[in-house]
Structures are given as structure tokens and as C-alpha cells.
């Protein structure tokens, strides 16, 4: 008992951030220990929930009897202190330095389809410039154009603008699990994605202003960060739906998401959506930059590498339950999650509870936007036995999300990027949820 007790004590008492849930856990633990039920191994979830609610009559809460905070005590509003666990997190062993690293979106805590700006994952290659003055920032467009131009932010916002909801996913999202299950938690297996409403000017409008020559086939986009990030974009994408955005979820971009200006290439690998955008250059060939040759290419078992895998594949994941959101009780629990496709619109999501043997079609929540996260839901009566939960997305171009076995067969285990395999969550009889892979 000794080690066990110590382990538990440390875990609770030294986690000051988890205050709200901590109290609840302590309460439940003491109740459970008193009842002597928990350590017997067979858990009685329904009983524990009842203990939480208690039988005492409801008291009039203090909040009914005292005045609350003033309307402008927090001029920029913040989440309740009980939501302090809803934060971005990192996997420190992944990278050499936190300036060239990634933080993960807490997908397990999101509802609907919009990612709050402060929770959007951040992938930087040379840190986030925090002090770019929008009055000093410039966008230069040149190369194979008739009229090279320089735009201020005030110039850009005079132009016709549009707003669209798009997901943005890092090419490395899920890459740690290519060979096998490695990350315990949907935040880490799938959290290099966010979905925001972006506002800006269509890139095609700016291309009209500079007069891109017909011989130009590619565009280089460059950032104003310490990596001076550069990626090549084929001109057909630039003319199609690319946006030069200054706003995210109704307010100006957050510094770590590209303030004051970024490229938005709907459905395409997030690395191409260059942040802190300062320059666009048109030319005849792809630039073959470091990030599109030595990185963001998928090494195959035969030694060849897939290059320019721009479009993020059709994909989905269940976010409730998941390792961070275990099953609280036997019986009913709505199963929910996200589906998306860089190719277009999600048309269907199926859910399996037996590891992919049998499937049921889930309901898709309106609105369903192209190249945006789509929320799916399906009812579930859990019998308390081990279950293997999976979700499978289909898009309007006919792509069906592959199984882990299919993706492994196609690419091997060293591809790192653009992994869109079906995720399996094992729900254990005690309610915990593990990331596993099935054959």
C-alpha cells in the first residue's frame, strides 16, 4: 500500500492548477476509501457519482446572496478559473529548443468547431515575433509581375475582404504514432490542428493589383520571423482560395499565429500558411526550400520520398471519450469528435465500437464548411466491457480515411508527415481510455 498511497498523494497535492477537479477527486477518493469499494478493483461508477451528488438538500449558493464582479473588471475577458486546465501543452522530448517546437491544441476540451484563438496550436521554426508593429509591417509582392508593389496593413484592409472558416493542420500531426501508439491523449495524438474563422483579402485580388505574368507558375511566401520561413505554392492554389488574413475568430491574429498578417491556404499543410507574411515572389519553378525538401517530405520504405504532399488528408478523431476524457459511468454517453478533409467537405463519418469490425453512421452537426473541422456525434450505451472506438471520415471527393494498417502498408513507419490513419481508443472496464493500434 505504501508506494501506492505516496504516488497518489503526490499526484494530487502537487498539482495546483487542477483546483476544481482536484477537490472533486479528493472528495471521491475519501468517499470511495470509506466505502472500501475502489481498491477491490471492481469499480462502481454509478455509486461514485451518487456519492458526489449527495443526499443533502440543495443550499442557496453564496452567489445568490452577494454581488458579483463589475462589468469591466477584466477588460479582456478570461475563462473561469475552473477552466485553467484547458491549455496548450508541449512534448518537450520532441524538439531541441522551444523556439523551434510545437504546442498542442486541447481538442479534448473543445465543443463545436471553432478553436479559441488562445488555444490554437503553435508551430514555430524560430520563435514567435511578439513585437511586430502593424504600422511598420510591409507586404512586398514582386518577381514575375508587371507592377511590384509594397502594401501597408492600412492599404490591405481597404481592399475587399472575405471571412471563411478553415482548419489548419501541421504536417507532423500524429507523426509520432506512425510506427505504433506512442502518445496517450488526443491533445498529443491529434492536437496540431485548429479551426478558425479567417478574415482577409483574397490573394487573387492582390495578384490582380501587381499583374502576375502568365509565365509565372509558382509563388514563394516568406515570413518575417527568425526562420524567415519560406515555402513554394503552385499558382493554381494561389488563384483558387488563398487568403491573406489579418483576423482570426473576429479579432486580429494572435502574435503566435502570425500577427499582423499570414497566408491562409485552405486545407493545405499548415507550414505553407506562412505566418508574419512579409513577401510574395512569383517565379517559374518551385524554390525547393529546406522545408519542402529535407523536411515535410515522407520517406518511404524503398528510400524514395513523397514531396509536395500539400493537401491534408481526410481524417477524423473521437475527442469524447478519449484518454483525457475517460468514461465516468456505465450506460449512456454521447460519443463525439472532429472530422476534416483538405480536399473539401466531410460528407460522412462512421463510428466503430469493436475496433473496425462493425460500423454505425454518425450525425454531422451543421454548419458543415469545406476544409473546416466538422463535428460528429453518435449515441452509445456502454455495457462496461472493453470497447475499441474508431471513427472514419469520408469527403465529397470520395476519399475514405485509411486504417493504420493501410497507411503503414502504403508508407512504412518513417514517413513522419501527413498521417491521417484511423485512431483507436480502447475503453477499459474501469473507464480509462488508452491509445492503441489494431491490425
Amino acid at each position, binding site marked *: 500500500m505504501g*508506494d501506492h498511497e505516496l*504516488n*497518489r498523494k503526490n499526484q494530487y497535492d502537487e498539482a495546483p*492548477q*487542477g483546483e476544481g*477537479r482536484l477537490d*472533486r477527486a479528493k472528495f*471521491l477518493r475519501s468517499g*470511495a476509501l470509506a466505502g472500501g469499494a475502489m*481498491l477491490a*478493483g471492481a469499480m462502481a461508477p454509478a455509486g*461514485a457519482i451518487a456519492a*458526489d451528488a449527495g443526499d443533502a438538500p440543495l443550499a442557496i449558493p453564496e452567489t445568490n446572496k452577494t454581488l458579483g464582479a463589475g462589468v469591466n473588471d477584466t477588460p479582456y475577458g478570461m475563462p473561469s478559473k475552473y477552466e*485553467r*486546465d484547458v491549455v496548450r501543452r508541449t512534448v518537450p522530448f520532441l524538439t*531541441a529548443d522551444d523556439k523551434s517546437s510545437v504546442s498542442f491544441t486541447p481538442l479534448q476540451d473543445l465543443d463545436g468547431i471553432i478553436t479559441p484563438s488562445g488555444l490554437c496550436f503553435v508551430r514555430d521554426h524560430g520563435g514567435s515575433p511578439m513585437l511586430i508593429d502593424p504600422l511598420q509591417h510591409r507586404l*512586398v509582392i514582386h518577381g514575375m509581375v*508587371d*507592377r*511590384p508593389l*509594397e502594401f501597408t496593413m492600412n*492599404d490591405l484592409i481597404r481592399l475587399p475582404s472575405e471571412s471563411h472558416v478553415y482548419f489548419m493542420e501541421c504536417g507532423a500531426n500524429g507523426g509520432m504514432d506512425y510506427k505504433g501508439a506512442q502518445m*496517450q*491523449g488526443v491533445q498529443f495524438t491529434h492536437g496540431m490542428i485548429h479551426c478558425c474563422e479567417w478574415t482577409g483579402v483574397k490573394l487573387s485580388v492582390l*495578384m*490582380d493589383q501587381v*499583374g*502576375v505574368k502568365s509565365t*509565372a507558375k509558382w509563388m514563394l511566401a*516568406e515570413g518575417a520571423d527568425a526562420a*524567415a520561413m519560406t515555402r513554394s505554392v*503552385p*499558382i*493554381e492554389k494561389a488563384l483558387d482560395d488563398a487568403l491573406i488574413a489579418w483576423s482570426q475568430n473576429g479579432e486580429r491574429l494572435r502574435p503566435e499565429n502570425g500577427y499582423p498578417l499570414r497566408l491562409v491556404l485552405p486545407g493545405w499543410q499548415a507550414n505553407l500558411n506562412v505566418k508574419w507574411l512579409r513577401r510574395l515572389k512569383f517565379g517559374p*519553378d518551385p*524554390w525547393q*526550400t*529546406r522545408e519542402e*525538401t*529535407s523536411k515535410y517530405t515522407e520517406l518511404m520504405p524503398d*528510400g524514395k520520398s513523397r514531396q509536395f*504532399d*500539400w493537401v491534408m488528408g481526410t481524417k477524423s478523431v473521437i475527442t469524447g471519450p478519449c484518454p*483525457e*476524457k*475517460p468514461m465516468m459511468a456505465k450506460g449512456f454517453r454521447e460519443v463525439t469528435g472532429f472530422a476534416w478533409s483538405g480536399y473539401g467537405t466531410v460528407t460522412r463519418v462512421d463510428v466503430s465500437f469493436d475496433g*473496425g*469490425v*462493425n460500423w454505425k453512421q454518425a450525425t454531422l452537426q451543421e454548419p458543415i464548411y469545406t476544409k473546416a473541422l466538422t463535428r460528429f456525434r453518435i449515441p452509445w450505451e456502454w455495457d462496461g466491457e472493453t470497447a*475499441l472506438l474508431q471513427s*472514419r471520415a469520408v469527403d465529397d471527393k470520395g*476519399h475514405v*480515411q485509411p486504417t493504420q494498417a493501410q*497507411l503503414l502498408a502504403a508508407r512504412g513507419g518513417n514517413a513522419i508527415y501527413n498521417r491521417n490513419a484511423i485512431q483507436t481508443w*480502447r475503453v477499459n472496464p*474501469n473507464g*480509462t481510455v*488508452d*491509445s492503441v493500434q489494431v*491490425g
Partner: protein
Amino acid sequence: MSKSVKYAAALAGIVALAGFAIADAGQQYNIGKPVTEAHIASWDIDVNGLTGAGLPPGQGSVAQGTKVWEAKCSSCHGEFGEGAGKFPVIAGGTGTLTAERPDKTVGSYWPYAPTLFDYIKRAMPFPAPQSLSNDEVYAVTAYVLNLNDVVPKDAMVDAKALAAIKMPNRDGFIKAEWDTKNVVCMSKCAPAPVKITSDLVNLHVTPEEKEVGNVGSTVDRGNIEESADTTAAAATTAHGTGPGAKAASGPTFEQVQPIMAQRCTVCHSGKPTQAGFSSAPMGVKFDTPAEIKAQVAQIKALTVTSRQMPLGNMTHMTDKERGLLGTWIAAGAPIK
């Protein structure tokens, strides 16, 4: 026609066949300031990896590059490009692209030499980008190419020389396309029950709650906390209160091997990947089950009891992993 030329032509074809309407047909708003090449010269630093277009005047030798490298690059990338910590390995790796653990370096992986100039110029040294002169960038480029046996020790590199180099992995890339064929099957889609091929429950690489850079609790506590906690604790102490037989029967070699592979074999291997080690320290290797088994006494003494290993805990072995190793050894270190 070489494969890479074919690939380049195919890329051009993708764009040409798309039949886009070129810009310039839309409305002109007369917004934006016309600029000259001179005005934007300091920003216009891109170099095309394929053609070398944009490479500036200047030159540098391997010898000059050695000095710049030692002063400004080797602290992260190692004296000979072997990499320090988790910073990228620059040299070596030839012939490893089809291996279980490929080393993707400039010599083994990068397809174009001018890309090296472009990247060093814009983004290196990591803490002081755009601080090197063009001659220094050419020199470092020459040094890195020499480390990878692409240019000789006495090479002098300039725009023309860089554009003419054919890198070893030049033909190693193909255009990515959708490459899987799943179908919307609804019943009896796989033989039941399905087989678990990968289970991370005892891998313990997911960041702990208090790990640097993270705050808060990752898992909802609720009423299952006792059981969830028991899973980890039971694996360590084997007192059998946890769910499942795994805990009751003690750690298996399948749980031990990933820990050794992740925390120990960066050095203790016939082929160490850690900077500064060309062979296994003290000749101790953990590449095979038999090699691990042969060293259990040392593992217990240095890793579980005195915690001297891993050195400086550079591979971040967790307490749970040390506990698991100890329990496994106490149970006779079965490799089954």
C-alpha cells in the same frame, strides 16, 4: 531524361494542365506603393534550390568554413556535423534511407545544394540568423558539403559551383498523391476480435503533468482516478491491485525493451546515435534481449539504485520506468 528532370517536368505539367486564368483581369484599386529592386534588395534573398537562381556574388572555401563552423555552428551541430542534443545531424547517414532508423542528413537526404546556401543565409546560426556575410555562408556551405563527401577538402564554392553540384539524393523524391484505398464497409469489415498491434499503456513517454512547459491536469479526475492511478502504480510495485493480469504478473520484457531502446541505446548500442559516441561506452550494448539480460546487475545498480544512468538523465528516464526496470529485475528479468 533523368528522373528528377521528369519529375520537374511533371510538376510544370500539373500547373499547365490546370488551365488557370492568369491574373490582371480583375479590378485595379490603385492601392499599394510601387517598389524598385533596389528598395527591396535586402529582403530579396531567396535562392532557388533547383537552378541556383538568386545565389549572390562571393565565395568560400572548406578551410574558411571550418573556422566559421567551429565558432558559430558546432555547439549545436557538433564539430563534424554529428549533432548535439536534439539539434539536427548534418553529416553521415549515407545508405540509411531504407534502414529501420534512417539518418536524414545533407549528404544522405538533401536533393539540392543551393538550398543549403539559402537556408544558412536566412535562418542560421539559429540564435543569430542573417548575421553571416555571403562569403561566410559560402564557406560554411563548402564545409558542410565536404563533411558529406560531396566536395573535396580543397574546394572553393561559389554560385556557379553550387548550382553544378548533383547531390547524392537528387533523384530521391516523387510527387505525393492520395495513396490509400479504404472503403465504406459497415459490417464484418475485419475478422473479430481485432488484434491489438500496439499498446502504449506502459510506454510512459506522454508528458507528465508537471513537465516543464506544461501546466494543469491532462486527465479529468472524476470517479475513476483510483483505478487509473493503480494501473501505473501496479506496474511499478506489482502488488496486484490494478485491473488486468498484466499488473499482477509483473512487467514483461515487452515493457522493458522500449524503455531500454528509448533511454539507453542512444549510447549503448553497436551504432550509437548520441553525439560524441562512436562506439558503445564501456562496450556495454543493449541492442538485443541477450545483451540486456547479461547486464541486469549493472542496470539495477546504476539505473535503479544509484540512478547514475542515464548520464545526467539526458534521455529523461522517468521514475516509473526506473521502478518498472527494478521490478522486472527483481522478478528474475524474464525475457521469455
